[in-house]
């Protein structure tokens, strides 16, 4: 059976060009970039080049890029690093209720360390209100962290405006842009961002590598100690194939950005329109226009998400859900709940996240099988009026 991958927000395949390059830096140019001999120097050069490519993707300077093991570590470093380094200035951090767990659970950890966190609510489209940000600021506020694009419902936040507000108040502004970087044009200066998290595996780079952008002058404390790598902000032998793979992925993403967005958004819009035309009792989750190019998220009333996923999987379609049954936790997606959805409606959510490899035929096939699956599950549901 042909398999269709509709889960690009979870992870993406590594670009073959990226993988081939990485292979070269594993078996052949395998040196440690800290070594002064030729094996080390040839890799050091490639690492520098990769840092430049990553910087170029977001309009930064290469010495503002610090490589980490992924988005989660970069989020941890941003929040804890700023919190501990600026404790004397204040102990208040503002974030939102719909952040990724890498932010939320780090904030909960910081609460235990004596920091005070405001979790901003969102509107029914998962959008943060500028007014709420403004009102949350106190003279203790040292950091505002708002994600760029939400990983579940795709809503793109008013980052530029929040960044401007933060700057006016002299507060650092971090954005978790894991879902956006490589898939959406970002410029740290245009968006008034002081710290930014990115992760390679969300845009056809390898897993296990990411970066934190840190604007020159931002006070940040390292969260790991060791050798002096990454200017001691993030020590440990560099994951050179990962870094070089990330660099190449950044280069490709920048080059293909516009065509890719156009292509993916067209498929997204077709899928949304198709589902809305074919299936009753549904709800589009997330903002209709301020939306990540590849994100489709619906709640199908009277249907439970995991059953839906498994049925799609049996038809060869890989997608995702915010259902409690999928998450392993006991509550459905905190994002959907924060948007005001009831447990039942949140339970029946389906996320289809498209990527550059998806085709019109795949959308057609999905529109062909989805209504039948929904109908079948509804016919089994005690909630669905007979």
């Amino acid at each position: 059976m042909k398999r269709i991958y509709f889960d690009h927000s979870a992870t993406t395949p590594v670009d073959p060009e990226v993988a081939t390059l990485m292979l070269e830096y594993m078996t052949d140019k395998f040196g440690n970039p800290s070594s002064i001999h030729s094996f080390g120097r040839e890799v050091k050069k490639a690492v520098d080049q990769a840092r430049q490519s990553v910087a170029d993707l977001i309009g930064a300077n290469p010495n503002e890029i610090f490589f980490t093991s992924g988005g989660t570590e970069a989020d941890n470093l941003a929040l804890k690093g700023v919190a501990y380094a600026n404790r004397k200035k204040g102990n208040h951090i503002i974030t939102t209720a719909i952040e990724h767990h890498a932010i939320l659970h780090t904030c909960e950890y910081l609460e235990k360390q004596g920091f005070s966190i405001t979790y901003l609510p969102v509107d029914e489209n998962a959008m943060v209100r500028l007014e709420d940000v403004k009102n949350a600021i106190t003279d203790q506020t040292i950091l505002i962290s708002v994600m760029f694009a939400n990983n579940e419902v795709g809503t793109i936040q008013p980052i530029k405006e929040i960044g401007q507000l933060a700057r006016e108040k002299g507060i650092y502004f971090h954005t978790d842009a894991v879902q956006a970087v490589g898939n959406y044009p970002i410029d740290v200066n245009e968006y008034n961002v002081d710290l930014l998290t990115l992760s390679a595996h969300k845009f056809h780079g390898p897993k296990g590598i990411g970066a934190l952008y840190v604007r020159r002058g931002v006070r940040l404390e390292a969260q790991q100690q060791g050798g002096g790598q990454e200017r001691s902000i993030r020590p440990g032998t560099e994951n050179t194939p990962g870094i070089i793979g990330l660099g190449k992925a950044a280069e490709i993403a920048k080059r293909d950005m516009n065509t890719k967005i156009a292509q993916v958004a067209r498929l997204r819009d077709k899928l949304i329109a198709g589902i809305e035309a074919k299936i009753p009792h549904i709800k589009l989750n997330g903002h209709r226009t301020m939306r990540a190019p590849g994100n489709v998220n619906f709640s199908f009333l009277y249907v439970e998400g995991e059953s839906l996923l498994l049925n799609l999987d049996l038809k060869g379609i890989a997608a995702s859900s915010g259902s409690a049954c999928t998450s392993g936790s006991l509550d459905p997606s905190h994002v959907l709940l924060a948007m005001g959805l009831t447990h039942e409606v949140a339970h029946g959510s389906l996320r289809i996240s498209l990527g550059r490899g998806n085709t019109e035929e795949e959308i057609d096939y999905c529109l062909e099988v989805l209504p039948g699956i929904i109908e079948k599950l509804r016919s089994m549901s005690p909630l669905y009026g007979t």
Partner: protein
Amino acid sequence: MYTEKVMDHFTNPRNVGEIKNADGIGEVGNAKCGDIMRIYLKVENDIIEDVKFKTFGCGAAIATSSMVTEMVKGKTLSEALQISNQAVAEALDGLPPAKMHCSNLAADALHEAIKDYIQKRGK
């Protein structure tokens, strides 16, 4: 993650549906994850002649519902009352650890349906 048996019962669930004028109906909701399961019984001479279910829940919830209906059809009520959650899970060759609480639904719903039948008959 699921065993073949779970996937079999999930893909082709047995005894889905409702029984009109059922002799007993049991419904349980899993407060933890918000799922609901309803079981309908047709009883004759203390024997379960027919059983159907409707479930809003995950793969494990559907498979356990289906499995429990298969296990009790033709059984006496007292035999049916002895079927435990554990037994249903075992009949499916096990469930993932995180899903073990789901298998509770199926036996509980069955027992609720039997209780309902007994109460109704008692009247």
